[in-house]
Structures are given as structure tokens and as C-alpha cells.
């Protein structure tokens, strides 16, 4: 028994280290003094640690403005994505077999469209709507559930809920919307959490959309800021790493907070 436990713990520690090491290097690197000549080769723990890089970041790119812009995008796009994907998935799951097959086919086809093909049409569309250089083109994909994959994920989860539950609700005279709200969605919480996390990561790290739709620096999002820092000469990489820490922290925090809420509510641990 104890031996099994040791192996298990060792395994957990090994996996933990594997994932934590890059993050640790990022944080340590962000504390290096960029005015010192860098060491040749690997120098894991810098001799002098300084927080100046975090203070100086905004002299290079307005990182806090970018952070606010990124937060606006995810604050709108993530809930809308979960809602739309959940509705669309519900519709697919509750459709007649023939319609369901067709809808799944359409979703899969949409999933396979290379993203480059839609850049120009979308650009033209947003120009026509007068929405260029605003956050809306970045949020708009959420109205289409961000990715058909999230729709299919919900469809799969909803179709595994016993048919009898839906039938009982229908006999009770519930409307489809009420069934979704009272029966289906509460049972699909883990899927909703997964989609929320995936959509968060997608929108948070979205680089190309802001690059082509935004032109005012004050409206840029974090990935554009990081790209800007990455073009600094390698000597100034501590600044890039400080930017990376700043960009990673809210994502990590959001995940940790929501993960606790999620486990408490759905798995009751």
C-alpha cells in the first residue's frame, strides 16, 4: 500500500515539475537585470534579482491598457461562447436523427475551413458594419460559439443524458428553453466549464484577429503587446518574460478560481 503511494506521489511530483519548470524559468528570467551582460549558456538563477522589469514594462508597451482590452474581450466572449455553444449543441442533440446528422455534418465542415480563408471576407464584413478598429470583431466569433468544436462537445454531452429525463420534462409542459435551463444545462456543467476554459484560452491568446482588425495602439490586446516585446533585442528578453508573466497571471488566476468553484459545485468535493 505505502509503496504504491510513494510511486503515485513521485509520479505526481514528476508531472508537476514538468509543467512548472517552464513557468519557473519564465518568472526567474523576468527578474534578471537586462543592463547586465547576459551569461553565456544557461544561467538558471540570476545573481541579482530585480522587479524593475515590471516597472519598466509600460515604457515599452502600454501593457496595462492591453490587459484591460484583453479582459473586455474575454469577459464578453467567454460567456457568450458557452451560451451559444450550449444552445446549438442542445438543438443538435434534440433534433430528429436526420436533421441531427445534417447539423453535425455542417459543424464538421465548418471546423475544417482553413482560418485564412475567412480573414478577408470577415475584414470586408466588419468594414461594411463600421466595426473595424473596435473590440467587436474579436468578440464576434463568440456569437458563432467561437468554434464548431465547442458545439459538438455540448451536443455529445446532451445526447448522453437519458431520453426519459427529456420526455418527463416535456410531459410537464416545459418549453425547450426551460428544459435546457432546468434539465440539460445543469447536467452539462463539466462540459460548460471545459468550453469556458478552452474559449478563454482561445480568445486570450488570439493574435491574428487583433493584428488585422485593430489599428489604434490603445485598443491592442496582450498578444500584440507580447509580440512587440519579442522584437526587442535578445538582451532585453527579461522584459519580454515580465510581459509574459503579466499576460499569464490573469489566465492562471481565472482558471484556479473557477476550478475551485467548479469542483465544489459539480463534483461536490
Amino acid at each position: 500500500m505505502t509503496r504504491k503511494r510513494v510511486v503515485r506521489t513521485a509520479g505526481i511530483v514528476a508531472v508537476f515539475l514538468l509543467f512548472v519548470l517552464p513557468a519557473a524559468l519564465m518568472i526567474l528570467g523576468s527578474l534578471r537585470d537586462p543592463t547586465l551582460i547576459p551569461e553565456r549558456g544557461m544561467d538558471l538563477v540570476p545573481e541579482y534579482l530585480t522587479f524593475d522589469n515590471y516597472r519598466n514594462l509600460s515604457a515599452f508597451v502600454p501593457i496595462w491598457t492591453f490587459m484591460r482590452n484583453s479582459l473586455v474581450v474575454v469577459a464578453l466572449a467567454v460567456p457568450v461562447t458557452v451560451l451559444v455553444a450550449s444552445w446549438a449543441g442542445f438543438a443538435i442533440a434534440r433534433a430528429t436523427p436526420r436533421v441531427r446528422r445534417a447539423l453535425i455534418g455542417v459543424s464538421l465542415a465548418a471546423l475544417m475551413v482553413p482560418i485564412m480563408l475567412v480573414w478577408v471576407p470577415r475584414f470586408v464584413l466588419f468594414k461594411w458594419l463600421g466595426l473595424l478598429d473596435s473590440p467587436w470583431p474579436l468578440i464576434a466569433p463568440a456569437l458563432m460559439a467561437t468554434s464548431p468544436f465547442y458545439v459538438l462537445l455540448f451536443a455529445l454531452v446532451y445526447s448522453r443524458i437519458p431520453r426519459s429525463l427529456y420526455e418527463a420534462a416535456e410531459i410537464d409542459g416545459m418549453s425547450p428553453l426551460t428544459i435546457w435551463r432546468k434539465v440539460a444545462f445543469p447536467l452539462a456543467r463539466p462540459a460548460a466549464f471545459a468550453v469556458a476554459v478552452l474559449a478563454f484560452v482561445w480568445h486570450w491568446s488570439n493574435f491574428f484577429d487583433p493584428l488585422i482588425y485593430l489599428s489604434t495602439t490603445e485598443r491592442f490586446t496582450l498578444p500584440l503587446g507580447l509580440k512587440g516585446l519579442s522584437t526587442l533585442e535578445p538582451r532585453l528578453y527579461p522584459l519580454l518574460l515580465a510581459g509574459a508573466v503579466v499576460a499569464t497571471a490573469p489566465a492562471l488566476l481565472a482558471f484556479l478560481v473557477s476550478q475551485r468553484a467548479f469542483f465544489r459545485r459539480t463534483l461536490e468535493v
Partner: protein
Amino acid sequence: MKKLFALSMAVLLLSGCASEDGDGSSDGSADSIEFQVSGDPEEIVVYRSLVGDFEKSHEDIDVKLIDVADKDDHLAKLSTAFTGGNPPDVFLVNFREYSQFVVRDALEPVEPHLESMNIDTADYYEPPLEAFTFAGELQCMPQNISSLVVYYNKSLFKKAGVAAPPDEWSWEDFRSTAVELTSGDVRGVGIEPSIIRLAPFVWTNGGEIVDDPDAPTRFTFDDPAAREALEFIVGLVRDDQAVPTEQEVTAAEDLETMFATGNLGMLLSSRRDTPEFREITSLKWDVAPLPQESVPAGILHSDAYCVAAGSDNQEAALEFISYATGEKGQTITALGGRTVPSRMSVAQSGAFLNPAESPSRSQVFLDAIPNIRRTPVIPTWPEIEDVAEEILTRAFYEDGYTIDDAINDLEEQTSSLFEEGSSAAE
């Protein structure tokens, strides 16, 4: 769920006020132009002050600076915007990349407007004007004329007991200097495996890199003079081991960092590295001309301001370019350190030649101008350079990959690109 929505609305409202304000200034007045440029954050600061100074003297024109971090993103954003019908009014682009926009009829040539812009081309160096002339017309207004020089680390020269590079030197002098500097962790010279580094060596040896510089159809490294240049450079890498290995370059991130950290005696580069090296106070460095053989030759590096065809504010756009390439505008960019001004009076002024700032031999950049040459201007040139870089990297570093292999591959792998480029240019 409800809470989440409430939260998101709150965030939106908080930020909403700020972005609303921004809208008014850029869309409201008729004379508002967009100016797109690429560069690292420090370079962008220079353009920001250029725009700021312009707006001070032109209160009726509002310039919105669109800054893009790197060149590939800059070109991708430009392409999408042009295709989508919403290009920036003015953008800065390299002469090796602008012709793809000309052949798509995306540019408004500046030539017919020179008079109204109060520009006399006689005030400017000839090579960049020539490089930006396509289909018989000056397409864009050049801002700089940089050329390839040899950056050198004065401390390492002293330590190795080697004399500083003179104003005239041959390949053999260059080679022996590189070899003498190479010892321990220090390599003699950093050379990128690219066509734009190799080309001036071919030219000074009396060779050509392509069959016809105006309408190229193929690389000509099979020509003896060109081949000799390729052999000379590859010899520095393979036989003399005076050039950093691929691993050394990767470990240091790039050649500039190797030079900045004192691991490289010399570095072939254009003016663009100057601001970076200036920042490192412990580094003592200067620049020297390229070594020359039978025909004096250098290679042009130049960017220019272009106006998008169909710009709503063409007049304001031209006004801005006239200012940016004028006395004051070029002085501001020259003080930034990265550009060699295309306007002669500014290039010969203290803004560029300031002897108190490194490099003290800035005159080297200007002395190279009479013999400067350029790579061909065809729409597929950027792709041709990419292919050539892969081949030259193999020629530098891959075991068993011979000069003959490189010459064959250079011709074979680029022939379709040359064909595509010359048919697009017609």
C-alpha cells in the same frame, strides 16, 4: 451565469468610456490619415515623435500611427487591408518588398506629385530613388540609404593585437583579420547566410548574382566570379572556422547579441544595429567599409513612404511624406540612430555624423554610396531570398553539402519563382 454576465457588462462599461473618446479624433475630421510602420518598441518611439512633431506644425492634419511589431506581420496586415479595401493612407516599406504592391495597382506613385510636395529629387541620393522607380515612375519616397558595413569590436582588436580595419582593404586582409581574431570563445566575423550579405562580395569580384538585374530570370552563381565569392565566404566558415557555428548563433539568440556580448570581432550588418550597440556602454565599437576586390561595390538597404492608391486623404498623406522625408523629418529619424538619411543635407549634418556618438566612422556609410548596388526589384523577390537563405545555411553548415550542390539548388529551387516574378512584373 447571471453573475458572470453582470461582471462582463461592468467591465465593458468601465472601459467603454475610454474607447469612445478615441473614436471622435480619428474619424471626425476630414484630414486624418493612417500611417503604418513596423519596428520594435524603441523604433516606434522615433516614429511617434516624428508624427508628434508633424502634427504640431500641421494642426489641421491628424496622423494615426499604426505600429506593427515585425515585418511579416506588417506585410500580412497590409495585404489583408488592401484586399479588404481599407489600407492605411501611408506606409513604410523596404525596396525589396514594395513591388508586389505596385503590380497589384495598390500604390499611388509619388512622381506626379513631387512638385506639389515641394520635393526636388536632386536633394536626395540617387540609388534609393532608382530602387523605388518601377514602371518608369517613382513609386514611393525613400527615407534612408543604408549599406552593408563591417561593425568591429575595438577591444577585441586591441586584445588580439590586430590593427583596426583601414578605409581600403582586400578580401585577403579581411580574411586574415577574421582568422587572427578567432580564439577561444571569440569568432572573427559574423555573416548571415543570406543573398543580401553575399551579393556585394559577388559584385566586387566582378560577378553578377542574376543574369539581368532589370529583368532577372535566374541566379548566376555558376559564373566564375560569383562562384569565387561564394567559395570565399563559405571558406571563412568551413576552412577558417572564423564564423560562429549554427549552435553558437542559436545559443546567443543572434549574431547581434554575440557581438554585443564581446564574442564576435566583426559583424556584417547595415545601419540598423547602431541603436542597439549604442545602448551598451561597455562595448567599444566602430564601423569599417566592406573589403573590396576589383570592382568597388556595396549593397543598398532602403525603406520608403508609400501612398495607398485610392486614399481618401491623398493630399494630407503627401503632405506628411513631404515633411517626413524633408529636412526636419529626416533629422528626427536620423537622431534615432537607425537610418542613414536619404536627403544629402541631413546625411552630411551632425544629426547623422555626430563624432561624439558611436560609430565615429559614420562617414563610411556615405563613402559607400557612389558604388552602391541593389538586388533586383521583382514581386517574388522576398520568397527567392527565403529559399536562398535555406540553401546558403546548408552551404555554411551542412556536412557533405558542396558548393556545387548549393549552386545547383540555388538555380533549380528558385527558377519557378523568377518566372512567376517576371511574368507578374509585365
